[in-house]
């Protein structure tokens, strides 16, 4: 297969994954103005939860209908969002709204540290495996290359997630309210919007997306402690490149990082470690607030 095409396919697969793990981060930042380091923990917990749930599904005789394991994956992410979303947002983060954004980064860093050990207490240090969903969708042969059907399912999932988020924000009543809060939460409050509920909803959506990213990754990896830490920095980079709080920005950022990383692995493997920071530095040099920053012209 042509090198360019391989890079494109590999880049798209990676970008799909990147988008799923970073769109929730940008959504949470847009609404709550919190850059959530614990997003990585939610990702890891999603991976663990799905490993447990899919494992339980097959243990309970799921072999008869293996495709049900995909429902288990998604259910795992929903459960994580339902349990941890309110716990973190209502129980902790809401006390920090309006505080300095760097301080809030530290708050979520503390949450990240705590959750790292909590995961170890719940799931131990031994790895969990749930490869069944990964191989279920068969192979796709493109030229001399084999891809797994699941890889393309990730791209599809990313597109669906992107569309759903975009349509919800731009074409529903709820979305309009959320956009209003993103734009100006104080103003929205005076207009009678229940900002508290929007915050909770947005955080739970973000938690769901983080957990979904983890749940979808779980079948192709071994789920072990320390999973979350690597996700955070790449997700941060994608979101910063795209512009904090921007959903289309996260998509473009994911594509840029995904494709440039693929190009680097194929053509200049030595540079793989840098490529993400390189893209980020270049973008920030020319667009100091990222590609799709919410611009705020200050009135004086």
């Amino acid at each position: 297969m042509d090198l360019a095409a391989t890079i494109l396919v590999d880049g798209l697969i990676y970008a799909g994954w990147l988008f799923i793990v970073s769109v929730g981060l940008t959504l949470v930042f847009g609404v709550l103005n919190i850059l959530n380091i614990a997003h990585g923990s939610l990702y890891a917990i999603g991976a663990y939860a799905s490993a447990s749930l899919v494992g339980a599904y097959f243990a309970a005789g799921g072999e008869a209908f293996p495709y049900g394991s995909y429902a288990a994956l998604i259910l795992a992410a929903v459960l994580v969002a339902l349990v941890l979303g309110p716990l973190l947002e209502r129980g902790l983060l809401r006390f920090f709204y309006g505080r300095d954004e760097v301080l809030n980064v530290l708050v979520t860093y503390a949450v990240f540290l705590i959750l790292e050990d909590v995961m170890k207490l719940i799931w131990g240090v031994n790895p969990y495996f749930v490869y069944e969903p990964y191989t279920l969708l068969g192979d796709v042969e493109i030229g001399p290359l084999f891809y797994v059907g699941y890889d393309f399912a990730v791209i599809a999932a990313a597109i669906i997630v992107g569309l759903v988020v975009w349509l919800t924000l731009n074409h529903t009543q709820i979305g309009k309210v959320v956009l209003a809060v993103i734009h100006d939460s104080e103003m929205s409050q005076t207009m009678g919007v229940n900002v508290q509920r929007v915050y909770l909803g947005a955080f739970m959506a973000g938690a769901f997306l983080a957990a979904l990213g983890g749940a979808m990754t779980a079948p192709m990896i071994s789920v072990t402690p320390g999973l979350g830490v690597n996700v955070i920095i790449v997700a941060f980079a994608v979101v910063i490149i795209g512009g904090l709080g921007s959903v289309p920005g996260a998509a473009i950022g994911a594509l840029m990082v995904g494709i440039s990383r693929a190009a680097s692995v194929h053509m200049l493997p030595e540079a793989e470690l840098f490529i993400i920071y390189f893209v980020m530095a270049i973008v920030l040099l020319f667009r100091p607030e990222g590609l799709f920053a919410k611009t705020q012209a200050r009135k004086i």
Partner: protein
Amino acid sequence: MGSNLIVSAIVALVVLAAGAVILPDWAMFLFAMALAKGLVCLGIVGMMRGGVVSFGQGLYYCLGAYTATLVANTFGVSDIFLLTLLSAAVCLLVGLAFGPLLSNYRGIFFAMLSLALSMVLYGSLSKMSFIGGTDGLNIAAPTFLGWAPEGRPLQAALYIYVVTIVVIAGTLMRLYFDSERGLLTLATRDNELRVEYLGASVRNIMTYNYVFGAVLGGIGGTIAALALGHVDPEFAFWTTSGEFVFVAILAGYLSVPAVIVAAIILELVRSFSNLYFPNTWQLALGIFLLAVIIALPNGLGSLVRRRKGNET
């Protein structure tokens, strides 16, 4: 004010230096490391006064440490004063190069761009296997103007050295914080537009704060490297920088001594939680962080120093 500051500095020097006699070996080392890191954090506090927080001070901590190590290993220089000066000079130059660039950024963008820079250094060093890659390098114990102590005297000398530097740097930074420039920094944090329309360059103010942070970071890194005897790219990793930010937030930007106390507290908490909860030390540390942020929203310094207009 001036003479009070000198008295305070002398008191701090005497109290801290007494540690060289009182402290057991392990604690003296822990304090020395905490003070070296405290220098880095002091630089962040300087930036915090201007309203930005660098999540990438590991860049200078690491740069200082590697400069000292490479100079020591290549040219056989072991004098601590010379090594400190050289590292500070290198960090000054790099700070002058990046300062004007970063001074255009605020808030989370400043934090993330500074983080990206330090991660690029981390990545580069990790790739350079001829200087040890991720495994890092060792550096021999320093000498003090020709004197080459060993054992406890070495540790005590290092400790006194870092105490002296911390007190000097703390005093200078206090002078700077209280100066006209220092007041401008606070004003910038508050209202950049106002400062710009009074005819001052906000970028210039930010650049100076950044460069001071770079130099302090380099000195801190040099001392840490000499105390540890080892450097590796972890010095520039984001979690290292995150720890510095934590100390700075814990201390707040009001009081200089609070920075030192905060650095020591963090080292103690980490060391003991490591020992008593080997499996859940991150949990313990996380809870400690949260407790501090909730209990002391303006930092430790707010316990002893409040901003008041007529305070002199």
